């Protein structure tokens, strides 16, 4: 059985960041990835400037191979049912449009850690001060022995399920799907990511250009019909925005754990098992999850290094250190921060101020109607409580973390 310092589950961006910190500090680290690398990952690929800087500083300048076409994204355009549109440019200029298949592969490779792909985590057990990790590799059972395990395995995290089997039942699940279309005529500016605040379309509706095609995507509560929802969005885009598309050539979708960041209900693991990235619940506004995956991943790696060096319980160190990333992410959803602070990487208020008074009123009304769509999840009170706690204590309470 292979005996190492740390096993990281999942070979994505959170994993690459954690692995970088661990291998730098000389800890022997293996990353397990279920799929064959380079692997496909459904994603719009719009990385915030903070995430871009993280990649640059830790892994080096991005090569062309890790980008789609267009290679950049200038910002986000919000479209409202009242037909007001507003564009927000990212601070500090355009950001990368990552090709996740290759960006993740590149970052993992640059992290310096050893990677075992086609190796799927299936469970773990504790044995004295070690953890035995069970996995399947090419249809065979394989075991690893590690001091620490990091679950960087994304939204439906098998590592979380191994330590909290009933967690998945406790949170609402969403389905997000996208289809790729040939373009006949598309007036939506290809330099922007387009987001539609329209409760009649879905919980999350977007469109953007990629490699000569147009992506039309929609997210909704698990259970609804993707094809119907998608068709509805295509029709809406054609009628309201003059977007004429060919029938789709391909499609994909996945489950999403949207919610924990809004209500400060993150999962950070227990004992020597740490959870990070989207598995822990990190998701920024407009579902930008890569920059917080990178930063939280790095913190999970640092926490292990610190804990070992100072001989402290790793959960204690991780939870103290991760508080800053929780602030960053949850601030993005905090109504007080949105109204009076500047939690995002683009200036929403400035864009709003460019509109006329009448338009501003429409926008606020439309946003409110869109928020009402989320009423059934009963997040409202939790968001207000978190926001008030943040105001009085300067931070979000650790008590709600799992």
């Amino acid at each position, binding site marked *: 059985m*292979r005996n190492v310092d740390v096993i990281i589950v999942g070979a994505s961006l959170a994993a690459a960041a954690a692995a*970088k*910190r661990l*291998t*730098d*500090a*000389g800890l*022997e680290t293996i990353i397990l990835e279920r799929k064959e*690398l*380079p692997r496909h990952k459904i994603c719009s690929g719009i990385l915030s*400037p903070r995430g*871009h*800087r*993280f990649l*640059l*500083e*830790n*892994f*080096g*300048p*991005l*090569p*062309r*191979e*890790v*980008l789609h076409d267009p*290679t*950049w994204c200038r910002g986000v355009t919000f479209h409202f049912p009242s037909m007001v549109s507003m564009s927000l440019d990212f601070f*500090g*200029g*355009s*950001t*990368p*449009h990552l090709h996740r298949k*290759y960006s993740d*592969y*590149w970052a993992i*490779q*640059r992290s*310096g850690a*050893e*990677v*075992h*792909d086609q190796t799927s985590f299936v469970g773990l057990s504790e044995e004295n001060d070690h953890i035995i990790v069970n996995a399947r590799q090419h249809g065979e059972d394989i075991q690893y022995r590690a001091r620490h395990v990091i679950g960087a395995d994304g939204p439906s995290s098998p590592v979380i399920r191994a330590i909290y089997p009933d967690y998945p039942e406790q949170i609402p699940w969403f389905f997000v799907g996208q289809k790729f279309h040939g373009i006949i005529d598309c007036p939506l500016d290809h330099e922007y990511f387009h987001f539609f605040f329209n409760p009649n379309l879905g919980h999350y509706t977007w469109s953007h250009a990629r490699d000569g095609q147009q992506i039309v995507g929609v997210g909704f509560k698990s259970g609804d019909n993707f094809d119907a929802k998608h068709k509805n969005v295509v029709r809406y885009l054609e009628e309201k925005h003059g977007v004429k598309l060919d029938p789709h050539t391909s499609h994909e979708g996945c489950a999403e754990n949207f919610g924990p960041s809004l209500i400060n209900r993150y999962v950070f693991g227990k004992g020597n098992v740490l959870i990070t990235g989207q598995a822990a619940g990190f998701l920024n506004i407009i579902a930008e999850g890569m920059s917080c995956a990178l*930063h939280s991943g*790095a*913190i999970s790696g*640092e926490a292990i*290094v*610190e804990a070992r*060096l*100072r001989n*402290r319980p790793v959960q204690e*160190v991780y939870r*103290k*250190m*991760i*508080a*800053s*990333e929780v602030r960053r992410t949850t601030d993005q959803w905090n109504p007080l921060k949105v109204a009076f602070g500047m939690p995002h990487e683009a200036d929403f208020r400035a864009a709003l101020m460019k509109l006329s008074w009448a338009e501003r009123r429409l926008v606020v009304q439309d946003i409110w109607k869109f928020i009402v769509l989320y009423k059934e999840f009963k997040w409202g009170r939790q968001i207000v409580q978190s926001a008030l706690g943040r105001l009085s204590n300067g931070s979000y309470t650790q008590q709600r973390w799992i």
Partner: protein
Amino acid sequence: MSASRSANAVITNAFGNNAAFTCRTLNLDIPVIDIGTFPADPVAANSLQGIKRQQTNPKRWNEPVWGEFVLALRVSDVEIIEQKFVSGTFATDAGGTAYGMPHGVVIAKDAAQISTLLQAAQQYKVPVTVRGGGLTTEGESVAFGGVLLDMTGMSRVLKIDAENLSVRTQAGIFWHSLAEALRRQNLDYLSAPLNMTSSVGGTLGVGGIDVNSARLGCSADQAIALQVVTPTGEIVECSDSENSELFQRVILGYGQFGVITEATLKVRPYTPLAMHYFYYTSLSEAIADLQMLDANDVSDYSGILTMMDKVVNLLVAFDSDQRETAFKTDWLHRLRGHGEFGIALKMALYYAVHPWRWREALFLRERKNTLFPEFRRPEHMRNGKVVDRTVVFSRAVWKHWGSRQMVIPDLATSPEKFIDTVQKANLVCKKYFPHYTLYCVGIKLRADHAPHYEMSCIPPDAVTHAYGCEFEPMMGDLNADAMYSRDTLQSFKNEIYDIGVAVGASYYRFGGMMKGYIRRVFGDAVVDKHLAMKRKADPNMILNRDVIF
């Protein structure tokens, strides 16, 4: 798309053991970027505006040639320690945020040994990171693979010349040991960092600022002559008159152009010092008074140490009764600061009308009660004067500022820009930390050393004086509620450094992030000029490679 891979190659892990499992090497054919070159940004011309496309947290060097290199060293009788428990002690620096593991450690013995080491390192292209006290804060003295050269093995004082007031010493010596040796002959060094566990060599390479630097200049300017082992292994003596070009590059050169093995430094007769403190509630007033004292050469020591921006302490001290008396008659009445009683009264009034700030008031009181007596401990005082300045300062620094992580970004500007710069950076400190300290001090410049200052901690627009300020958050001990992640601390530092870019400052001991900021601050032309010199002196870029370029 050029994704390719070779099947079933054995991956070698970080410690050279062959992995027990076979797995594919992952290869996305990405060309290696030469140090100091900047390929065009494939994202967009306007992405990450102003930020150089450069990896600043270095990739760990890990090449199979290591084994051969070690053999070559052994044959030449250079001992190299590969045990993990030895290299582990060098895993980080005083900053405590950057971690790196050398493959092996060489403890410095003499110039000949270092010469052999560097020649082999050139031949096998193995990076060598030099370390003195390891008091850098951004990982400059951390080895990201390769060799760590521990200079503390060379720490003997070679010769004290009391007549001509100079000392020849090995460069790995800590300042406190040097001070001890000098005190036995009633001598003292000129200026050194306030923490005394930094080495002479490490300090000459980065700057060295003391509370008397406004009068005596930075530590690097005290060096009369050096013995240097160049990156290709030549042992060279240099000074202003001998091999002066090398001397110019090595002084304030961040270890890029050679390993300093010996140094001849100016020294002075020892004197006890008489201290005075003045307290301000306004940063700008305190700085203006500090600059007035410095400009008129009123005191022998001067500096500012704050408790946040609430209580700003101007420290003024004298080597002689004569100068102290002159100060009292001519200058004292011009200072706007209060005495201890005055400031206590003022603060009491302030918090009486700001009762919700009680936590801050408690912090200040606690700080005052524990810190102030530290500067006048009876065992270090005689006749009201401080007799052991080195001990008093370094003890206070470590006891009251030291923590697990030392995050001390700093800025150095011309005198004119200083107040504005400090005020801007003060706001950044406030935003990030409930408690912090600022430390401000003047640095006298030597007109004849202008070539030394290019691309150093001395800002390009400073002529006779520069001013440095460092920003030190109080982060508490291991049990503190807050523990800061590296990236939080990095964003704090970045915000401070960004001010430096905006105002055209330098960084006073260039505490850090040189790599990410040096081009933004000095411009490509100057940096490329130094890079060309570096390439010439160090063809394989082996010496302290991740620090600047």
